[in-house]
């Protein structure tokens, strides 16, 4: 496990990252989901809150650390 974690840290050397496409947003390594609805998604990250606003949000994939959201993105805000 130590080796795995080492590899993971080497490959994913960031605490978190966001991938934003035209109609998708991928968030890696969030801690909690605070709000989840069709217009607003608020994710608790390690040091801040991530607010995503838009329309017709739909969760495509959801794991313990990653979420893939499809929808019309209007605003992505980081609240520290």
């Amino acid at each position, binding site marked *: 496990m130590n080796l795995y974690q080492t590899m993971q840290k080497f490959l994913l050397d960031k605490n978190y990252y966001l991938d934003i496409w035209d109609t998708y947003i991928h968030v890696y390594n969030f801690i*909690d*989901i605070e709000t*989840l*609805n069709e217009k607003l998604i608020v994710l608790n990250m390690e040091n801040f809150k991530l607010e995503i606003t838009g329309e017709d949000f*739909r*969760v*495509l*994939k*959801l*794991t*313990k650390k990653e*979420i893939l959201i499809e929808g019309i993105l209007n605003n992505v805000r980081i609240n520290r």
Partner: protein
Amino acid sequence: MNYLWLKINKKYKNRLLIKCYKKKITVYDTKEDNSFIYLKISSEDYKTFQKSIIFKYQVIGGCGPNKIKSILKKYHIFFFSLIVVFIIFFFLTHIMTKVIVIHSNKEIRELVTKSLKEKGIKENSFKKSYQEIQKIKEEILNLYPTKLEWLEIEVKGMNYIVRVEERKIKEEEVEKDRCNIIATKDAIIKKIIYSKGEAIVEANDYVKKGDILISGVLKKDEEEKGVVCASGKVLGEVWYKITLNIPKVKEITEPTGKKRWNLKLSNNTYNDLIFKSRLDNYQTEEHHLFTLFGSTLSFVVQKEITKKTVTLSNEELKQIAEDEIKDKLNIKDDEDKEIIDKKILTEEINDDNLTMEFFVVVLEKISQSIEF
């Protein structure tokens, strides 16, 4: 990994997803329609889902090995039948049930059958490939070069049909130095045909069995000039007395037109019809269906007959007598034999039989070559 698709009411969507996250249930895919949301989760996470999610949900399908298992379970009878059909089909196309060797000589048939058996071509065995059959053919022909001229093995259905040609080596006739032609029966000489030797007898001479007909000793003026092996043929009239007992009444069978079908099973221990016969008197026609593991199944057609007795007319009795005389004297098999004359010596008629004594004169070959 096994996956499941779950169907949940769309109004619980957001709370459900948050709950899944909090319970560390991975959602691999989602789909939505107007009323429902569909989630794809793993079988392992499903156990957690069952315990922790309070919303109403429905499992609508699986993915991966689980789905295959559910399909197999649902259609297990179909898949089982398919496997059975394939096995039967495999057997019917790959198992040979009979080896038929075609030749008039029993010895050749037995020889070839034994050789084929040793090479693996036998009843209830797997079908050999074309190359293997050709190889076996060559081996058998090389094994018996003096007995077998040609061998052909044909695969027809579930049978091997083997055609053989015997090799006939003409034995060289050993020329004999000195021989006479003697009489084999008492007879009156009718015809003498000879190419070597000296004829001792003439036409219309009466000879007894053992008398010399054509001598191998050539004489001139009572002096022996030379010795040869006499060759020739002598035909003579032989007299026979034959007694026949012919029944006047004959039982004949006539078909009624009624037919019934049946099946017959035969093997080492059993040889009988499968279903009870519905006719009392019948003639059967058997049609071989197949042979498997020593048991033969045949399709039987039973044709109903009626038996009745008829009294033979004089012409019919005469014809029967003629045929029986020919059989007794082997007239049909011998081209040198023919009946010259035939007379009835005695005739005795009772209710059932006709007893007749015949005097028959037959022209036949009476000569035989013998060394001296």
